[in-house]
């Protein structure tokens, strides 16, 4: 067997437990398409943000108290008395927003370049599972400071389960651990909020295993067949990811140090009061599009199903998109619909922050309808009617054509 490591201790250990060769294979030698653009930076950014969230969260947990009478005060204790507690907390709360921003861009990139298509369906599924777990974790985490939005957000969302026929109310009582959102609810939310990130780490591991099976997709969406089309991950993509990380940290830093509360709701600096309902109960910005879908439909159960369905439909995407060509570069019609879909999603987010009445309600209904039409009608039909552009044989042909 060829020696992989010069250092004798490393070689000895790796022979018995091949973690170093696995890491070397994944982070150093891994052959990667040479034509990846900056949109491919967001996978590693998401992974690093996950680690930042876990480390900052662990530090917060050393000072936080999960009790209805003490939670709010303990967060203020972190902000005022703990050394650099304000920094840790702002990193964690702004970090949640950054995490979603990155993951939304990561998903959008997958949608644009057809990264969900065969043979990467399972990779795509694992990504959606991570997204669902992130949603759960972010929602649970937002309740922990026990401010007004924490409390009422938790009340609204847990109440959604009451829409389930027959057993709905019993399930809500079971989730609450009582007859209203109260101390048992806060306690279990804390417990689950602590657990889920580690489950995400596990799924991320599988996500990477599935990714490395066929390698990254690339902007052309064509399979890498020639050896010259690939370059080793290190140093080319390690340095590119590091540069991307630098840019990301600058944006992250601007929010943490200069606009720490701009992404949150001011009501959460008012301690939770079960007797006073805030004027508008709105979730964090990253949930607004789904919140709009939920409220667009007058029947609670249907609204809940539509909201769930809007994410679960992504699982079926590899089959709903009937086109064999992956990348938007060669799909002139889909490219238009892609941008309309993105705009539609932004509009959903915007109406999600408004009170659902009058014009806003009409807009939210049109946009909710279009969201599903995009997946259920436009995508399947496009595969049959769209005339795709000729796809080059390899990425060099594409490269030359551009010049």
């Amino acid at each position: 067997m060829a020696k992989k490591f010069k250092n004798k201790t490393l070689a000895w250990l790796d022979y018995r437990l091949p973690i170093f060769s696995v890491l070397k294979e994944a982070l150093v030698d891994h052959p990667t398409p040479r034509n990846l653009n900056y949109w491919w930076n967001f996978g590693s950014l998401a992974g690093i943000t996950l680690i930042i969230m876990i480390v900052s969260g662990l530090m917060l947990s050393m000072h936080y108290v999960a009790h209805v009478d003490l939670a709010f005060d303990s967060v203020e204790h972190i902000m005022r008395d703990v050394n650099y507690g304000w920094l840790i907390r702002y990193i964690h709360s702004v970090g949640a927003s950054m995490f979603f921003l990155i993951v939304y861009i990561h998903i959008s990139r997958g949608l644009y370049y057809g990264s969900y298509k065969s043979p990467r369906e399972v990779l795509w599924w694992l990504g959606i599972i991570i997204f669902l777990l992130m949603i759960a974790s972010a929602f649970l985490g937002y309740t922990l400071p026990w401010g007004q939005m924490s409390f009422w957000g938790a009340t609204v969302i847990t109440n959604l389960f009451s829409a389930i026929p027959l057993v709905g109310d019993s399930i809500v009582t079971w989730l609450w651990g009582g007859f209203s959102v109260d101390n048992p609810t806060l306690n279990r939310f804390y417990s689950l909020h602590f657990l889920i990130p580690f489950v995400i780490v596990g799924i991320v591991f599988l996500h990477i295993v599935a990714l490395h099976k066929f390698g990254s997709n690339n902007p052309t969406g064509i399979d890498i067949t020639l050896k010259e089309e690939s370059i080793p991950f290190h140093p080319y993509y390690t340095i590119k990811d590091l540069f991307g990380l630098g840019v990301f940290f600058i944006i992250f830093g601007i929010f943490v140090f200069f606009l720490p509360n701009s992404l949150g709701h001011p009501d959460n600096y008012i301690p939770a009061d079960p007797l006073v309902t805030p004027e508008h109960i709105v979730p964090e910005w990253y949930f607004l599009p789904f919140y709009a879908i939920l409220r667009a439909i007058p029947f609670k159960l249907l609204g809940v199903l539509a909201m769930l369905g809007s994410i679960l439909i992504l699982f079926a995407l590899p089959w709903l998109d009937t086109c064999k060509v992956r990348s938007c570069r060669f799909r002139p019609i889909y490219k238009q619909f892609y941008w309309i879909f993105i705009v539609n999603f932004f509009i959903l987010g915007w109406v999600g922050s408004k009170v659902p009445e009058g014009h806003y309600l009409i807009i939210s209904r049109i946009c909710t309808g279009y969201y599903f039409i995009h997946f259920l009608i436009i995508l399947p039909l496009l595969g049959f009617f769209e005339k795709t552009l000729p796809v080059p044989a390899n990425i060099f042909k594409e490269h030359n054509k551009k010049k």
Partner: protein
Amino acid sequence: MIRNFFFIILTIFFLTPNLFGEEKAVLKKQEWDFQGIFGRYDKPTLQRGLQIYQEVCSACHGMKRLRFRELKDLGFTQEQIKQYAETFEITDGPNDLGEMFTRPGEPSDAFVSPYKNKEEAKAAFGGAYPLDLSLLTKSMKNGPDYIYSLLTGYEDEPPKGFELPEGLYYNPYHDGNVIGMPPPLYDEAIEYIDGTNASLHQLSYDIVNFLNWTAEPELEKRKSLGIKVILFLLVLTALLYVTMKEIWSRIKK
């Protein structure tokens, strides 16, 4: 083409946050020292703000998250803080006999709220209760400008046709244009220790500065650390960019 459309839509969102919303009184935006990346608190302003809180607000409003020792940030010496804290009576205990007792305040104590609990405050004010002010500016949108506008926005006579309920005051900045709090500040409401002219504007400006400090005491530290961090990251990222170009030049043809 489609991309332009995309950006036009986004611009519309950000320029017209209230496309179909109803008109609300426009906030009187002020130039705050603590705004912007170089934002700092002005110590004399904060000291005047503390005096206003002490002589006016504290009759009804608590400040329970602020500790006397934190007044160091306002430019007071340890000795001054100790003396100031001693003017407060703190309920402590239980002692060896199981009884609560009172003692003079210490720098580590928090400000004493005027009411023992929310229920007592509610009883005293007939249902509504005066908020604790520790986090006030953070707990509302555009907090500093809003509080300034509210404090200076009282009108003696409500507009014609407006039914002002008994015991309430007209203020277009508050929800429903009425507020239970009587105008707390007016010209010469207090006499400043440092002799500054106590106009309504000056009083409102000073108290908002003080309240923003109590809500965000870490602000100066945060912003000065932020500038260092961002400068460091800019240099680091520039170096990473150059390194990346160097490494990639090996394969670009």
